[in-house]
C-alpha cells in the first residue's frame, strides 16, 4: 500500500457523497506509533449502503471518524477524504462544523448515551436545526415533529417535549436517526447502529434505515461486525482486517462467494440457526438435577414505589451433563435468574435448589461449601477478572478460598486448566490487560472450572466477543462440557448461539417463561408468537435468504396486526438493480475509480 500525501487532495466531483482514497491513519501513543488504517480507498454513492465489516481493532471506526474530522490530536492522517465533493483535510474548523450535520451525519452505537439526558428531545433536535440555519422557532418545532413522525415515533407532537429516559432504547435510536436526518445530509455514517439493541428492535431499525435511504436518496456508510445486518442492509461490502481492506464487492458476491481467506473465515464463524439439525437429548429421562428453579419470583425494591418484579413465577431445571439455554431480550430477567441461581440476589419467593439443596434458605457455612460446586462465567471479559491479579492467581483463587490443595498442586491445576482452555502456560504470569477479550474469557472459563463444578452458570459469555473469537470459544466450551460433564445454565440473547450449544431452551419475556422444551422443538417449530417473532427477526448472512425472511416477517407482523406505521415496507428497488451498479467491484479499487461504472 502506498501512502498518498496530503498534496494530492483535490475536490473531485464524481458522483460520490463520501470517498476515501489512500486513507492512512497513524496514532502516536506512549508505546510508539500505531498504524490503524493502512491506505484504504472507499466510495459511497447517493442512495447506496456501503457496509464496512471487520472485527474490533480493525480500523472501521477510525475510518468513519476521519470523515467527520474528529480524530484525536495524536493522529497523523494522510490521503484524501472527500465529503460531497469537498476535501475534508483542507477545511477550516468553521467549515468542518458546517459540514458535520449538513453533509455528513452520524448515528452512534449506544442510544442510551448519544442523547443528553437533561435536555428534552425538542431542545436537542431544534438545536441542530437552528445551528445550521435550517429553521427557527415554530418552524423548527414543526420540522422536528415531521422528522419524528418520519422515523415512526407515535404521537410526535406530544412526545417532542419529553426527555430521553421516557423513550425505549429502540425509540431513542429512532430519535438519534431523526436528528441525523434533520439537515438532509448527503451521507449518514452509522457506527454499529443496532449492536446495542435486541433482535426484534434491530429488525425495526434496519427497516427504518432502509426506507429512509430510498426515500431521501442518502448514502449510508454502515459500520458493523454482524454479517446478518450486512445481508439485510448493504448494497456493497468492504471487509476490513488489521487496517486494510481485504475484499470489496457487492453484498451478494462477498457473502455468498467470498474470495479472501479472512472473509471466508469470518462467514464460517457466524453461528447459523438450524445448522445443527435434530439431535438426541444428551440426558435421557430423569437424571440428577444440577439446578432446579421452582416458581421463582425476584423483586427489586424501589424507593417510594411498588417493587419491580424482574422475574415472575419462573420454573426450570438443569440436569447434570445438560446445557439449558435461557433466551430473551434485554429486560426479560434472564441475567437476574442466573444471578439468583448463584445466590447473588435474594429471591422474593419460590425456591432455587442447587444440587438438591435450596439456597434461598441456607446459612453461610453450608452455602460456602455449596458454592465450591458451582462455577460462573460472566459477560464482560474486561471486568470479570481482577486487573490487579496475575492470571494464574485469578484461576487459583477459588482453590485458595476453599483451601484446596497445596500451592504446588494448585499450580499444577492452573497449568492443566490453561491447557484445557487452549492457552499457553506462561499466560499464568501475565496480567488481564495484556490479554485480548477472547483470551480473557478463556481465563474466566478456566477459573470457573478450577473446582470441577457440577453446575456452571454462564451469563452471556460470548456476547462481548468478535464472531470468530466467539466461534472458537463456543467450540472449546462444548468440548469442555463433554469432558467435565457439568450441568450448565447458559444465558444468551443470541438464538443462533443457543441453537449451537443448548439441549434444552427456555424463552423468557418480561420475567415470565413463554415457551420451553427441547432445543430442536422450540427453535424449529415454535408454538408461541413471541418465539416466532424472535426467530424471524434474527438476520442470516445471505442477502437472498435474508430478503425472503424479511418478507415473511412483514407478512407475519401483518397477521398479528403489528405493522410499523409510517414506514414504506413495499419492496424497494430489487437487489438485482442495485447489484448492477457495483458488479465487478471486487478487491481493492484504485483511488478515484468508481467500482464497475
Amino acid at each position, binding site marked *: 500500500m502506498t501512502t498518498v500525501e496530503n498534496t494530492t487532495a483535490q475536490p473531485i466531483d464524481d458522483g460520490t457523497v463520501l470517498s476515501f482514497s489512500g486513507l492512512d491513519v497513524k*496514532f*502516536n*501513543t*506512549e*508505546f*510508539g506509533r*500505531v498504524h*490503524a488504517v493502512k491506505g484504504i480507498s472507499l466510495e459511497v454513492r447517493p442512495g447506496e449502503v456501503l457496509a464496512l465489516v471487520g*472485527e*474490533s*481493532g*480493525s*480500523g472501521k471506526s477510525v475510518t468513519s471518524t476521519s470523515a467527520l474530522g474528529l480524530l*484525536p*490530536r*495524536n*493522529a497523523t492522517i494522510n490521503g484524501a477524504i472527500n465529503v460531497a465533493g469537498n476535501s475534508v483535510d483542507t477545511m477550516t474548523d468553521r467549515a468542518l462544523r458546517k459540514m458535520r450535520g449538513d453533509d455528513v451525519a452520524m448515528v452512534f452505537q449506544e442510544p442510551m448515551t448519544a442523547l443528553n439526558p437533561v435536555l428534552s428531545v425538542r431542545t436537542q433536535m431544534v438545536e441542530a436545526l437552528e445551528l445550521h440555519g435550517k429553521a427557527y422557532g415554530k418552524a423548527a418545532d414543526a420540522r422536528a415533529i415531521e422528522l419524528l413522525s418520519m422515523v415512526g415515533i407515535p404521537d410526535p407532537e406530544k412526545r417532542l417535549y419529553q426527555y430521553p429516559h421516557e423513550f425505549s432504547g429502540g425509540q431513542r435510536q429512532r430519535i438519534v436517526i431523526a436528528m441525523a436526518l434533520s439537515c438532509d445530509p448527503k451521507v449518514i455514517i452509522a457506527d454499529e447502529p443496532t449492536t446495542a439493541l435486541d433482535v426484534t428492535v434491530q429488525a425495526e431499525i434496519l427497516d427504518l434505515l432502509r426506507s429512509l435511504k430510498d426515500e431521501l436518496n442518502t448514502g449510508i456508510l454502515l459500520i458493523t461486525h454482524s454479517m446478518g445486518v450486512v445481508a439485510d442492509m448493504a448494497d456493497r461490502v468492504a471487509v476490513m*482486517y*488489521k*487496517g486494510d481492506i481485504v475484499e470489496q464487492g457487492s453484498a451478494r458476491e462477498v457473502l455468498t462467494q467470498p474470495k479472501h*481467506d479472512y472473509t*471466508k473465515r469470518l462467514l464460517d464463524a457466524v453461528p447459523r440457526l438450524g445448522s445443527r439439525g435434530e439431535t438426541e437429548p444428551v440426558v435421557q429421562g430423569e437424571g440428577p438435577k444440577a439446578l432446579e428453579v421452582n416458581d421463582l419470583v425476584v423483586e427489586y425494591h424501589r424507593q417510594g414505589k411498588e417493587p419491580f418484579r424482574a422475574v415472575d413465577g419462573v420454573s426450570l431445571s438443569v440436569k447434570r451433563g445438560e446445557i439449558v439455554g435461557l433466551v430473551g431480550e434485554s429486560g426479560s430477567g434472564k441475567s437476574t435468574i442466573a*444471578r439468583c441461581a*448463584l*445466590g*447473588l440476589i435474594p429471591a422474593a419467593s419460590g425456591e432455587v435448589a442447587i444440587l438438591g439443596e435450596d439456597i434461598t434458605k441456607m446459612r453461610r457455612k453450608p452455602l*460456602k*461449601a455449596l*458454592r*465450591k460446586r*458451582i462455577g*460462573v462465567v*460472566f*459477560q*464482560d471479559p474486561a*471486568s*470479570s*477478572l*481482577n*486487573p*490487579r491479579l496475575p492470571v494464574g492467581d485469578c484461576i487459583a*483463587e*477459588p482453590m485458595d*478460598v*476453599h483451601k484446596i490443595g497445596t500451592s504446588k498442586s494448585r499450580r499444577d491445576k492452573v497449568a492443566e486448566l490453561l491447557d484445557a482452555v487452549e492457552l499457553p502456560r506462561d*499466560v499464568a504470569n*501475565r*496480567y488481564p*490487560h*495484556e*490479554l*485480548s*477479550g*477472547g*483470551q480473557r474469557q478463556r481465563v474466566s472459563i478456566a*477459573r470457573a472450572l478450577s473446582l470441577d463444578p457440577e453446575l456452571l*452458570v454462564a451469563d452471556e459469555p460470548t456476547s462481548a466477543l*468478535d464472531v470468530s*473469537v466467539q466461534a*472458537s470459544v463456543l467450540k472449546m466450551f462444548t468440548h469442555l462440557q463433554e469432558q467435565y460433564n457439568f450441568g450448565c445454565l447458559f444465558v444468551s440473547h443470541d438464538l443462533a448461539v443457543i441453537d449451537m450449544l443448548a439441549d434444552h431452551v427456555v424463552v423468557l419475556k418480561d420475567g415470565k417463561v413463554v415457551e420451553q422444551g427441547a432445543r430442536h422443538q422450540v427453535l424449529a417449530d415454535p408454538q408461541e408468537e413471541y418465539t416466532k417473532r424472535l426467530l424471524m427477526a434474527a438476520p442470516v448472512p445471505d442477502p437472498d435468504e435474508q430478503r425472503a425472511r424479511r418478507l415473511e416477517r412483514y407478512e407475519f407482523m401483518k397477521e398479528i396486526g403489528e405493522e410499523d406505521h409510517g414506514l414504506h415496507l413495499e419492496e424497494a428497488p430489487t437487489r438485482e438493480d442495485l447489484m448492477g451498479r457495483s458488479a465487478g467491484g471486487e478487491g481493492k479499487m484504485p483511488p478515484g475509480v468508481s467500482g464497475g461504472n
Partner: protein
Amino acid sequence: MSEDRRDSAMQGSPEPLPHAGSEIDDPQFTDKSYSQGQLVRRRFFRHKGAIAGLAVLLFITLLAFTSIGVGGISGWWDKDYTSTGTVLNGGQPTMGWFYLGEHPFGQDSTGRDYFARVMRGTQVSLIIAFVVGIASTMIGTVIGAVAGYFRGWAESLLMRVTDLFIIIPLLVFAAVLGRIAGDSGIFVFALVLAAVTWTGLARLVRGEVLSLREREFVSAARAIGTGNWRIILRHILPNTVGVIIVATTFAIASAILLETALSYLGFGVQPPDISLGSLISEYQTAFTSRPWLFWFPGIFILAIALSVNFIGDGLRDAFDPRQGKDG
C-alpha cells in the same frame, strides 16, 4: 483508551493471516508489555514537575535530618536549637554565595542559632505531615471501604459520622483537640490531626468501592464463596490504590499547612519544641527589624508544600489512564 490502542498495536503488525480455525487474537506481542506498576512509574518519571518536587523534598528532608541529627544522634551541624549565645553582628545571616559562616540563617534575639532552629522546625513539620497523611489515609480507607462495601446501616452510620466531622470548622475542631493533645508530644498531636482530616478520603474511597463492587470480578468472587473481608482486601482495595496514593499526597501537603496554621495560632506544637509555624508565630513581631527570622521558615513551608503538591500532581497524572498524549 491506551489499552485499546495497544490492542490495535498488536494487530497492527504485518503478520501473515493465521490459518483458518486458529483464534485471531493470538498473542503476537510485538511490543513490550508493561504491568500496571511499570506503566505508572514510567509516566511518573516523565513528569518533570513531579521529579523536581521529589528532588526538592528529598533534599529538604535529608538536610533537616542530617544537619542537627535526630533522636540523640548528632548531625554535621555543630550547634543545637536550644542553647543561647552572644548575638554577633545584630544576628544577621552570615550565609554568602559559597560559604555558610558561623550562623548561616542568623541568630534570634537571645543568640540561638537560627539554622538549627529552622532545621528542627522542618523536622517536626515533616514528621507531623507524614504521620497525619498516613494515619488519616488509614482511617479514611477503612471507613470508606466498609461503608461502600457493606452498604445498609453501616454505610448510613459511617457517612453520617463523616458528615458530622465535615460540618465542624476544621481549624476550630483541630485547635481545641490540638490544645488538649499539644503537651503530649508531636506524635499525639499528629494523630489528633489525623482524626479530624480523614473525611475527604473516606468519601473518595467509598465512591470508588461503590463502583468497584458492581464489577463482575467482584460478583465472580462472591459466587465462588469468597468472604467479605477477603473481597475487600484482595479484590477491591488493590484497585483503589491509585486514588488512595494521590489523596494521601495531597493530605500530606494540606497537613503541613494545617499544622503551620495551628502552631502559628498557638494551638499546635508547644515550646520548648518548635515547628515551622511556631517559629513564624514566635518572631512575627520581629518582621521589620529582623526579617530573616520570618523569611527562612516561610520559604521552607512554601518549598515543602509546593514540592509535595507537585508530586501529587505527577502521581495523579500517572494513575489516570485517560490522559491523552499529544503527538
